[in-house]
């Protein structure tokens, strides 16, 4: 039985390798290889290397261009967002009723919960930020490309296999008896639960997570090297843009946090499979995992939120017609958050019985981190104050970000206080709090960026009305869903439960109603995101073409960024050299011209 499987696998691997070899010989002219001058990958024109990109799908498989890789990251992140979002929607649908009615069982709920958390944080959150950073950081700092374009591509291509492994339980369950379903150990993977569940899908998820961690670390090294060494002549530290600052800080955090997660994951994997006792009660103890995990996990929160703050700090002033208020202090607060983020991890562990003196110090640092966050918030508000505000879709998402971030942030300040946390720990209050940040803020900043730069990366305009629908459905949906969760937390409702039919004490009717409200919000969110995907894809093919290098009319306020100057140059060179772009020029003649917004 086992042997037959191995033989089949051998044949499969052989065919795969042969296929790869054939593909390579078709793609690569082995004989005429010309290494780039100086061993560098960002060589000058050598006159020998391929200058054009391959066509079709091969272009995407082989690209090392930062803009292409940015688009790959973005596409990947959107697919992951859909997976994670649908998992959440299924859970919310289940919670309309107190008993299990929609899903086949509570374990499926647990698996969806795990998959939702891991997917949104590691497969959507980190990659969507890498998408922006890849596309725009080199443009902002006037670099030709990333410092290590090939490592950049490796970092991206580690993600799809990572995602397949993380989700593997769902795919393999119908075919393998040993796999009982998707991994169901929650995104925090606390032992002893995670060490004892026998489902092999857990091992695959750990392997997949490890790959995504390696990917993030490679990307971070690349961004640090790029921002330090590839800046153009006119880009110094004093006029480095705010987004690059946040990406630089984020990369520093990744560099310290992700390798630690990788090590901890390997230790857990060994505990599960090779009889080590890192996290066993008789060994290092289960609390050791919590320390290691949250030493990564809390900086991860800032890894996810700093670049979105950068996007907001970059986009919001454009539509307020004013420069970012207190630019320097926004940068300082970014750096301060980066440093402080490593000193707050034990606030996730206030209820584990750790030494009260340690607890107090972590409370102090956790409260202190509210200060740089508030500095940013006040700076954004002050930037808008008396500004010439234009309520374009990206601006709406920016304002939505600030609004949601305040609610998410203030609820976080409460949680940082030990006495409050002791009551609210492990309730829906926590879920509501961090979803205000991850959905209400991080995803909103992502949408702001996607709309703001749409004319650049798509070369066309999105549909304004649909975009407004997307915003309002998202804004109302987010607040309906997650504010209901905060109230559920006040009612003492515990998180992670698939059913609540056993509830006999407390305000049962209110709890049921709040769950249904949260689900109603989730429906709005789902509809909004479907509209968004439709708008993005449809406009990519049919939207009116952008024909100016300043599609947002930022010039009159003196707010046009370096990336739009690049875009203008590209538009001009396209026209100037249209000999090489004949097809475009011909078909373009009859097309509708663009309006400006």
């Amino acid at each position, binding site marked *: *039985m*086992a042997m037959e499987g*191995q033989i089949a*696998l*051998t044949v*499969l*691997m*052989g065919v*795969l*390798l042969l296929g*790869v070899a054939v*593909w*390579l010989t078709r793609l*690569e002219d082995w*004989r005429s*290889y*010309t*290494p*780039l*001058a100086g*061993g*560098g*990958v960002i*060589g*000058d*024109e050598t006159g020998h*290397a*391929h*200058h054009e*990109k*391959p066509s079709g799908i091969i272009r995407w*498989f*082989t*690209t090392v*261009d*930062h*803009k*292409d890789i940015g688009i790959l990251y973005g596409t990947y992140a959107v697919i992951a967002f859909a997976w994670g979002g649908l998992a959440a929607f299924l859970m919310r649908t289940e919670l309309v009723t107190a008993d299990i009615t929609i899903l086949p069982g509570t374990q499926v709920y647990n698996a969806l919960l795990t998959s939702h958390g891991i997917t949104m944080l590691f497969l959507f959150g980190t990659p969507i930020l890498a998408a922006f950073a890849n596309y725009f950081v080199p*443009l902002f700092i006037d670099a*030709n*490309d990333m410092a290590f*374009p*090939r*490592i950049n*591509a*490796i970092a991206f*291509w*580690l993600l799809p296999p*990572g995602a397949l*492994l993380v989700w593997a339980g769902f795919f393999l369950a119908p075919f393998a008896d040993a796999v009982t379903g998707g991994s169901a150990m929650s995104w925090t993977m606390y032992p002893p639960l995670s060490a004892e569940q026998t489902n092999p899908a857990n091992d695959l998820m750990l*392997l997949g997570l490890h*790959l995504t961690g390696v990917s993030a670390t490679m990307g971070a090294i690349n961004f640090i090297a790029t921002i330090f060494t590839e800046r153009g002549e006119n880009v110094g530290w004093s006029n480095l843009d705010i987004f690059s600052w946040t990406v630089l800080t984020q990369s520093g955090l990744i560099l310290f946090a992700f390798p630690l997660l990788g090590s901890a994951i390997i230790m857990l*994997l060994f505990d599960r*499979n*090779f009889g080590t006792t890192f996290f066993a009660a008789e060994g290092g103890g289960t609390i050791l995992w919590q320390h290691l995990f949250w030493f990564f996990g809390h900086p991860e929160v800032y890894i996810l939120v700093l670049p979105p703050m950068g996007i907001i700090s970059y986009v919001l002033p454009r539509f307020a017609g004013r420069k970012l208020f207190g630019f320097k202090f926004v940068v300082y607060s970014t750096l301060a958050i980066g440093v402080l983020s490593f000193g707050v991890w034990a606030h996730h562990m206030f209820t584990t019985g750790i030494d009260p003196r340690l607890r107090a110090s972590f409370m102090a640092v956790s409260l202190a981190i509210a200060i740089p966050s508030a500095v940013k918030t006040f700076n954004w508000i002050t930037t808008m104050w008396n500004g010439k505000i234009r309520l374009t879709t990206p601006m709406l998402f920016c304002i939505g970000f600030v609004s949601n971030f305040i609610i998410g942030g203030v609820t976080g300040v409460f949680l940082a206080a030990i006495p409050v946390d002791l009551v609210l720990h492990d309730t829906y209050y926590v879920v509501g709090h961090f979803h205000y940040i991850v959905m209400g803020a991080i995803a909103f900043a992502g949408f702001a960026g996607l709309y703001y730069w749409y004319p650049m990366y798509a070369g066309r305009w999105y549909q304004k009305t649909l975009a407004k629908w997307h915003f309002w459905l998202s804004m109302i949906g987010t607040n309906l869903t997650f504010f209901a969760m905060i109230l559920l937390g006040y009612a003492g409702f515990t998180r992670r439960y698939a059913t609540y039919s056993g509830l006999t004490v407390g305000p049962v009717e209110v709890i049921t109603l709040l769950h249904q409200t949260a689900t109603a919000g989730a429906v709005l969110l789902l509809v909004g995101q479907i509209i968004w995907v439709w708008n993005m894809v449809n406009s990519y093919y049919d939207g009116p073409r952008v024909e100016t290098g300043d599609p947002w009319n930022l010039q009159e306020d003196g707010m046009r960024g370096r990336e739009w100057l*690049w875009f203008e*140059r*590209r538009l001009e*060179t396209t026209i100037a050299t249209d000999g090489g772009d004949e097809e*475009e020029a011909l078909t373009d003649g009859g097309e509708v011209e663009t309006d400006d917004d």
Partner: protein
Amino acid sequence: MDEQPGLSDQYRMSSPWPMLIAFGIAIAEVGIFWPLAPMAVGGLLMLVGSLVGMIRETGYVESPWPLLGGFGIALVAVGAALFSYSGGAFAVNSVAESTRSAGSVGLRGVSIAVSGGLAIVGALVGKYWTTANADARY
């Protein structure tokens, strides 16, 4: 849309190796962890082969074959060490069976060593029986 000339369009912007390196890492990782020998061998071959290809492409080495041979020797060494650690045991498990038996550790060692052996054979064949580039041309 990016076929147009622009700022960063003036140098080589495609390489087949990064994707293969990433897939090689992933396949080898699963193959070695769950002792699925064919995946371990295939994944490691894909990984070292593509690494060599990329290093050659960027001009850090002139000929790919010595480096490939070097990777092969390293893999044989690691595999042999793991095999001897297991006490020479060797067993083919199904996925549901224990991943920590001596036999499965031995199997991991053997598969890593086999991939190293294949890499060495590839390096020799490449160097002496093909014309696929002995010298880099500048």
